[in-house]
């Protein structure tokens, strides 16, 4: 890539072009001429025509939001979701705490403990959506693809807590088992050709 445009730091010159505007008139006669030309040039009527034309064409672009919705991109970063493993339906989250660490608005908090199977158990997990800036770092850093962004951007509720509870974020178990849980394609997702980049490790068995 050429870096020319970055190296040219003369902001006043680059990528700007001058509109051909005549200088302000200095003489009285000049001012009269300008007033006259502006008055009779008919630009005002062009404006009127343009909007009238659009009205006649009736080419309406409104999306009637609650009834109609625009499709959301696969990498859209809205309210978080917690994924489960396919088939088994076990939570993917291992409680490593990387999301808590990387969160730049400091809105993730989690509590972990040792469970009876000597595994790390996430006992509590919250995201303060009032603080979240939906940067997607948590999804990017997650080693298990557990925390992802979902497409649900309608987070109006009488309780913000409705969106911050771990159990609410978690994919319903039946969705995970039936395989309808959708993978997130955005930040942190497995890239195509990932297999080619993995190095093999010798195994003794």
């Amino acid at each position, binding site marked *: 890539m050429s870096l020319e445009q970055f190296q040219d730091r003369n902001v006043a010159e680059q990528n700007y072009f001058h509109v051909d505007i005549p200088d302000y008139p200095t003489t009285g006669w000049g001012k009269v001429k300008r007033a006259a030309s502006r008055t009779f040039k008919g630009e005002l009527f062009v404006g009127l025509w343009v909007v009238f034309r659009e009205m006649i064409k009736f080419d309406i672009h409104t999306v009637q939001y609650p009834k109609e919705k625009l499709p959301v991109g696969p990498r859209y970063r809205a309210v978080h979701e917690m994924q489960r493993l396919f088939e088994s339906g076990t939570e993917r989250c291992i409680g*490593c705490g990387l999301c808590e*660490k990387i969160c730049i608005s400091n809105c993730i908090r989690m509590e972990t403990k040792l469970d009876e199977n000597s595994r*790390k158990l996430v006992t509590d997990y919250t995201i303060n959506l009032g603080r979240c800036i939906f940067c997607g770092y948590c999804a990017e850093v997650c080693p298990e693809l557990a925390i992802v962004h979902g497409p649900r951007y309608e987070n109006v509720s009488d309780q913000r807590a409705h969106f911050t509870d771990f159990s609410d974020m978690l994919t319903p178990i039946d969705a995970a088992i039936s395989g309808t849980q959708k993978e997130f394609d955005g930040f942190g997702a497995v890239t195509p050709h990932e297999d080619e980049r993995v190095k093999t*490790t010798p195994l*003794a068995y």
Partner: protein
Amino acid sequence: MENNITITIDGKEIQTREGEFILNAARANNIFIPAICYLTRCSPTLACRICLVEADGKQVYACNAKAKDGMNITTTTENIETEKRAIMEVYDVNHPLECGVCDQSGECELQNYTLEVGVDSQSYSVPDTHKEAVDWGLIHYDPALCIVCERCTTVCKDMIGDAAIKTVPRGGDALNTDYKAQMPKDAYAMWNKLNKSLIGTADRSDMLDCTDCGECTAVCPVGALVSSDFQYASNAWEQKQVPATCAHCSAGCQISYDVKHTDIENSDEKIYRVKNEWNYVSLCGAGRYGYDFQNADAVKDETAFNAAIAAFKKADTIAFTSSITNEEAFILRRLKEERGYKLINNEAKVFKTFLDDYSKISGQQLYGADLKMVHASDFVVSIGSALKTDNPNARFAFNNSITMNKGAGLYFHPIKDPVIDGLSKNVMSINHAPLQEETALYLMLDLFADKENLPKDITKYLDSFHSKKMITIEETIKEEIIEKVMVKQLNKETGEEEEVEVEKKKMVPKKVSKEVEVDDNALLAQLGAPADFDEKLQKFLKKKEKFSLMVGPDLYTHPNSRNLARLVALVEKYTQFELVMIPALANTLGVSLICDLDEEVGEYTIGYNTKADFTLSALGDGDLDMPALNQQEGTLTSINKRVNPTNVALSYGGYVLNDIANALGLDAKYTIDYTKELGVVKGFSRESFDDLPNHYTNSGEEVRGYLLKRIGIRRSSNESVNELEDIAIQSDIVYLANPVLQFTAFTNASHQLHGEGGLYGSEAFMSKHALNAGDKVNVKTAQGEVRAVMIHDNKIDGEIAYLPTFDVNLNSEALFSGYRFSSASYTKV
């Protein structure tokens, strides 16, 4: 310790001292040499072999190669890089990829060095074995994560002295022999050793039998050894480190409280664990696990505060313990000046009296040495202290000097201590009767004093103990014999091993009996020293250069303590021994220097951390709450004569002593405003709290607070000491001491160490009195009687039991008249 030679590392000329390990020299000068298994202050283990350097063209291990003048060292060559890469690959073989949940959470040396060396592919493999994680009480061991660097076993043996863990056979398949040819030499050797060992308890039992210091978890470079309580509780990076000074004993160890919000709902900070700079300071279990003794939920209770002010106006006496900061002690001193309170603190008072008496002969305000000098010495004597519980750091120093400096030690104490006995065969315990500490000090003079200069009457008195006697001794001489042995030898022609018979000359020890005239020392008999004392001592004293003496609280509380203090001063003056006194509590030294203490109690007493007519308590059980030592900033004076700063780890919502002082007419915004004013006290400096550092440098230099100044005292020419009195404690004996992991009610307030106190006795004690663990026992002395539960303590031996002070429900101190031993009668209830 002077830097006297110059070596060159990677072209940089550095100064170091003869015999210093190259690794330490490099570290002191901020030159990075990777090392996993090495621990400063402990012996090199050569387990990791990654500290390879090239010294004068020869490949050596930086951790055990000593610097020589003019040495030229290169830290990296092509071969070394290949070795390092192979070593790190080997460490990564079969290491579980559970970094995401591992408790080390990134503070992992395996991770660091793997990245440092740049391991991005693996060339080696060996079948993995299933290794079950084990819980050893406060310590949790996951062998799957273990890289067998042996730091834990090294620190346990060389520093702590428990030697409770060691390497044990690993089991599983042997390495593929092809690797020997393929792999770099050191990497293969290191792997070969690694693949055969794991860490296990020294006695191969399921439970770890040690003093639970947890130092092994601190030194573990990976997440194999962790605190059971901390497991999966929090990620390391979430923790904020609060540099502090341990508040439990006089060692004043530097620690950092790791704090984080309590949970999702509660943003108040909570201490999750305690960490230490394990290369330079070792913690005991009380310091490591007894951290959450804060006075939680204290609020500004105005009624109680007003009651306190009224009480202060009414009172004429303030009684307190030494678990307070220097600043608080100074406030008490100022209150005494302003309002004429009597200050009562017996434990500090006896220490102060002892110091005063000592000063009269020594001409110094304070004892001359510190624990660092004990670490460096090679002959250590301890008198009058239950070393492992009075001051664990003194025990570590005792052990460290013996193991690292090929040293030896004498331990004078009435209670037999298997931990001390187990330190080394070069430690001799003399379990004398109580009250015989004086005799022990006379023995010190007799054995080590410069008799020429010693006052004549003392020399004469000492001579009176000596007589001659004939004894039969067995002597071992060496005799040469020739024997035939079968030796495995490599046949150079066939390349196979075969057995060959060879003749060998050998020196074999032979015992002969002999009758000799020896000196009979009556002092030894009085102390109950073992029969071979003289013989052993001779062996111990070979090639010894630096001598240290540690004296403990038994001396300060001794009925003849004034005489003992003079004897101690004489020992310091007329022998080569450097002297360390072990203050009983965290800030006993500071309190005794700052406060002018009284003996007589007045009519109305305010108690600070001690029950009185009006009680201020940091334990939360008094009339007005006070902050615990992890909730306030201030300084503590340690055994090393150092004024150490400690910071606020947890918030505190109530009133502090300074508020009371301000209400009574003093004027200081913060308690630490008094830090500067401490300068008026002899020995202290006029330094403000915020200027006090609290860290160690890479060379291990302690940059913490400041050292007390050496203050000369007018020496009295009178060096006379009283002769031994024939005093003894009759009947059964009870001792006032705490079990391992406990010091005060504060250690007991922490959730991991909380427990109920009782009468602690050995197996021998219990069988003598026909008691079983769990029995209720009435302990009766001349002073009083308490009922306690019998608890078996396998860390002591002999027939003396002890009562602890950490459990406030067990008012054990009331049973003692001052001296830590008392005659007692035990009845089972």
